[in-house]
């Protein structure tokens, strides 16, 4: 009998357990608003920490109109772009004021998912202003060590409504805390971990020249562009101009020359080497490793290398940066070739010389890595001054809306024509090989589609795996135009360390204060007591109600 009972009980246990687990696992109810947020990058340079050091967030929200003097160590400040005051943020960060977190709201034009084209009708000077302010903010954040989470989000109607509500509460002088209710921002992600062995991948492709008998080794011309980016929000660093424009120009040049080289009658007597390198923002680490992997003969056979860096948003002037002095014969020849073509295309080309300092690890231009290996090289760029470390590396402000495909088309024309004249030895001016409406015309649709694609793909190298779809896509595209495409996987130099967790979902809850629930409890308690008394009175009479509360009369009196 007892055994049977026990068996029944035992069979009930799993059911009971299951019920308990289900009841306990029911998630906290969904938030009113859920927003995609992107975290500020977290990295170390030689052990020195930079960026935002935390990822998880669970605090009340406040706006910039918070009452002065209030304690914000457990609050998240939401700063929309139009309320952004750089000096205020700078002060806050440099004075290391305690803060629960920061949330920046960016205008929609910077979103690469902005398919509705919101904000495209801003005036040009407005856009320039927005760009400058954001660039300043980005530089400030990237070079500071911030001990709390910093996130970026895009403005949309939900979050605007929440922010308006928060502002209203703040103006009345009541900061949101546990006792007063308000909005709570929750991001639940695990602690960020180091990215172990970040890989950088270099992609190269060859277009071999026409070898006639008696030629041992044909000279080579290299065309190189770095394709990775770095920015304040790695999930948003699409680097449309820096260096998406360079990559697109390289691909188009490869396509044009593959057409020329496909027919042995029009194949030139130069090999062409195309290189898409990674590790650009980190002193062109990838280029350095790529060059080191060449053997001596190959390196010596390179006549010169052209590096492309940001050719997507210029109007009238391009710059050629060199490290050999301008009096050098090779440099003179290269520069003359370019400036002749530029004159025909109705814009200017300038020459800038910057000496390299071998003892300084800072490599400002890609051609400097070539020069350190004693290969003549030059960088073609719209920038006239070398950018600082981690500056102009395709961050927040570098979005598609600021990049101009016409500029890229003109750059391609410049480089392709100059190369052709050098390779085929054309002396006469005015021979245009890549004329519009010819079979060798520069294809604007090709450029536009690749530029659009790259402007939608964040490309921060440590967060890209060996088989990243972008790397495979670039490899496939190079295989279309060139031969012997190979990948080289390397590990990024130990000086830079990166931490993961760059994208998350933010839950915004509207919470009621504890005082509200206490009040509610009081009201309910009194309601139930009133209901009880009412029912007792109507059904049993008033005497019964009083008798419930009166103690029974003491019996001690009787014993007396």
């Amino acid at each position: 009998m007892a055994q049977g009972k026990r068996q029944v009980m035992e069979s009930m246990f799993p059911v009971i357990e299951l019920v308990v687990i289900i009841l306990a696992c029911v998630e906290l109810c969904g938030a009113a608003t859920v927003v995609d947020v992107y975290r500020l990058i977290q990295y170390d340079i030689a052990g020195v920490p930079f960026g935002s050091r935390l990822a998880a967030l669970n605090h009340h929200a406040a706006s910039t109109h918070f009452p002065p003097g209030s304690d914000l160590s457990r609050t998240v400040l939401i700063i929309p772009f139009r309320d952004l005051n750089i000096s205020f943020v700078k002060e806050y960060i440099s004075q290391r004021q305690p803060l629960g977190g920061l949330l920046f709201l960016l205008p929609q034009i910077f979103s690469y998912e902005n398919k509705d084209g919101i904000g495209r009708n801003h005036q040009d000077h407005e856009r320039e202003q927005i760009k400058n302010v954001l660039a300043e903010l980005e530089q400030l954040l990237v070079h500071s060590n911030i001990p709390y989470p910093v996130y970026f989000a895009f403005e949309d109607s939900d979050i605007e409504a929440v922010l308006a509500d928060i502002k209203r509460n703040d103006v009345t002088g009541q900061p949101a805390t546990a006792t007063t209710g308000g909005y709570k921002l929750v991001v639940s992600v695990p602690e960020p971990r180091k990215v172990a062995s970040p890989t950088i991948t270099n992609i190269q492709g060859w277009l071999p020249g026409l070898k006639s008998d008696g030629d041992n080794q044909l000279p080579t011309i290299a065309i190189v562009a770095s394709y990775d980016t770095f920015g304040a929000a790695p999930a948003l660093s699409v680097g449309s101009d820096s260096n998406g424009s360079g990559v697109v120009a390289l691909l188009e040049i490869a396509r044009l020359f593959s057409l020329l080289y496909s027919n042995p009658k029009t194949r030139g007597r130069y090999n062409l080497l195309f290189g898409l390198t990674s590790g650009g923002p980190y002193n062109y680490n990838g280029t350095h490793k790529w060059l080191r992997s060449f053997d001596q003969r190959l390196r010596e056979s390179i006549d010169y290398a052209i590096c492309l860096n940001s050719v997507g948003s210029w109007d009238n002037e391009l710059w050629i940066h060199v490290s050999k002095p301008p009096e050098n014969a090779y440099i003179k020849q290269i520069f003359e070739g370019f400036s002749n073509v530029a004159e025909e295309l109705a814009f200017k080309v300038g020459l800038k010389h910057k000496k390299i300092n071998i003892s300084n690890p800072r490599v400002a231009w890609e051609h400097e890595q070539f020069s350190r290996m004693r290969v003549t090289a030059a960088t073609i760029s719209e920038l006239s001054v070398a950018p600082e470390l981690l500056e102009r590396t395709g961050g927040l402000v570098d979005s598609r809306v600021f990049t101009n495909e016409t500029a890229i088309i003109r750059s391609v024309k410049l480089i392709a024509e100059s190369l052709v004249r050098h390779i085929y030895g054309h002396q006469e001016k005015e021979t245009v090989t890549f004329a519009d409406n010819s079979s060798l015309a520069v294809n604007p649709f090709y450029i536009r589609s690749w530029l659009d694609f790259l402007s939608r793909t964040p490309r921060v190298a440590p967060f890209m795996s060996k088989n990243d779809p972008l790397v495979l896509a670039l490899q496939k595209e190079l295989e279309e135009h060139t031969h012997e495409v190979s990948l080289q996987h390397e590990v990024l130099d130990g000086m830079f360390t990166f931490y993961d967790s760059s994208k998350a979902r933010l839950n915004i809850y509207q919470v009621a204060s504890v005082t509200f629930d206490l009040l509610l409890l009081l009201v309910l308690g009194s309601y139930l007591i009133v209901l009880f008394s009412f029912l007792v009175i109507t059904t049993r009479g008033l005497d019964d109600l009083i008798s419930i509360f009166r103690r029974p009369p003491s019996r001690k009196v009787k014993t007396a």
Partner: protein
Amino acid sequence: MTMFHFFNCAILTFGPHAVYYSATPLSEYDTLGTSIKAAIVYLGTALVKLVCLATFLKVSETDSFDPYQELLKALIGFVDVAGLYFALTQLTHRNISQNHKFQAVGLGWAFADSVLHRLAPLWVGARGLEFTWDYILQGLEANANLVLSISLAALGSLMWLRKNKPKTLIPIIYLCAGIVATMPSITSYLRRGLGWHLPKVVGFELFTSLVMAFISWQLFSACQRPST
């Protein structure tokens, strides 16, 4: 803090039932068994209604008021009334006066209704961080439902258990019973057809439940006079 809110809403939803039981003479006469039996009958009718609804109703995409569908739902709602009839007449009760029987049945009925319809949303929703007024309104609705159930049980007991009723009152009794029985259809019409928001609907329910309770109390005492 959110468990606190859940606790508050729970006592708003289920507290009045417990208070009703302990405050009125029901607790003295130990009518708990009757209430439990009524709750089980409610469960049975709910299942039958579910099957009927699943078989006969088609799922509408929009949230608008479709009179034909609502009529069908109202007809199925009368299964409720049948269940109440069963609970009042067929279950063998111990010697409880009629007065207490309908109260116990109504109480058990309302308690089962609250548990089935309101406990799960409360458990899932009120414990979260996000605050809404919905659960408090749901609790008020549960209160209105309690009053309505007891009135319906009272009218039901008048219709089926009392043999000698004054002739003039009979149509009024049936009319009131009809109104109370079709309350769900009326509220759904208000919500969908007229587009009333939840607070307004709950307010309407509370008001009508008090009015119907008063009317049925008057009818009950009117019917009771000849026998005393």
